[in-house]
């Protein structure tokens, strides 16, 4: 009995392991952020569009907002750009666009040409604000609730489906005080 059962159990365990490990829906580079549920790190940086304007997320306390990490050199960011524009037109939440290790002129030019989905574009030239947020690539998108806590982090370009499924319900929950 054991002679049959043990190898069979081992086989089933391997199948489960492989089904999890080789699943095409799983991004092996995606890491859980330790910052979920923690206060969003504060920054005060000059705006890409107007360097006399200082952008700080401390003025957003009490508001639900989205922070998108992007750069003009980042191709996947270009991919999600149209989607971000569509989202910004719906005026659901303010979108902050943290410009990550970029050249200001290039970033500004890109937003002027393709449209600017951001309410503010803090310029994080040396990536210090990004380190505080645990950013390790672009694009990354964070959702911050009214208490100023990070409630969700999404890595890779946003699509309409992701926005519908992952962001909208969480935004609604953050608004209702959950």
């Amino acid at each position: 009995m054991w002679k049959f059962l043990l190898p069979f159990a081992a086989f089933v365990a391997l199948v489960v392991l492989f089904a999890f490990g080789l699943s095409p829906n799983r991004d092996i580079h995606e890491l859980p952020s330790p910052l979920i549920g923690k206060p969003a790190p504060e920054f005060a940086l000059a705006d890409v569009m107007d360097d006399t304007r200082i952008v700080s997320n401390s003025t957003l306390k009490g508001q639900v907002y989205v922070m998108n990490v992007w750069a003009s050199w980042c191709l996947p960011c270009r991919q999600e750009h149209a989607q971000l524009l569509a989202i910004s037109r719906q005026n659901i939440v303010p979108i902050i666009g943290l410009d990550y290790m970029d050249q200001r002129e290039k970033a500004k030019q890109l937003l002027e040409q393709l449209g600017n989905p951001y309410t503010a574009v803090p310029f994080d030239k040396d990536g210090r604000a990004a380190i505080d947020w645990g950013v390790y690539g672009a694009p990354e998108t964070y959702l911050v609730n009214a208490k100023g806590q990070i409630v969700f982090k999404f890595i890779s370009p946003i699509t309409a489906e992701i926005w519908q499924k992952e962001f909208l319900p969480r935004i609604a929950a953050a608004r209702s005080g959950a």
Partner: protein
Amino acid sequence: MKSKIGAALISLGLALYACGACAQEQGPGLDAHGQLQNPALQLRFERITKELRCLVCQNESIADSNVELASDLRRQVREMLVGGKSDDAIFSFMTDRYGEFVRFAPPLTAKTALIWGAPFVMLLLGGIVVFRVARQRSRMPLDE
């Protein structure tokens, strides 16, 4: 003759490439070779950066990686060392932002017990199997 010249060119190219990869870093508290002026700090710097994972390449340490994020994190470590921060403070700065995964050798806690314990469990299981098989074989009659 020709192949000798070719080989020389290739090695020259490799040497140039290697030099490009080890671009020297600059900053406050650094000497001309991109090392911390204080040798004790430089030693700690090397040990800490070898212990931290570069999250872009994931199997390289931030000491080995040429990715921009790694160089930013090296700068961060260097600044914290010069600022008199302890090793523990630097490691917790990193794990607070990037999670335990940034450490190649995470500290032994309830959460990481499985990682640390798994090799011993595997060894034990393997040992049991070998022991049982060996005992069974020794009981088998020697026909031949």
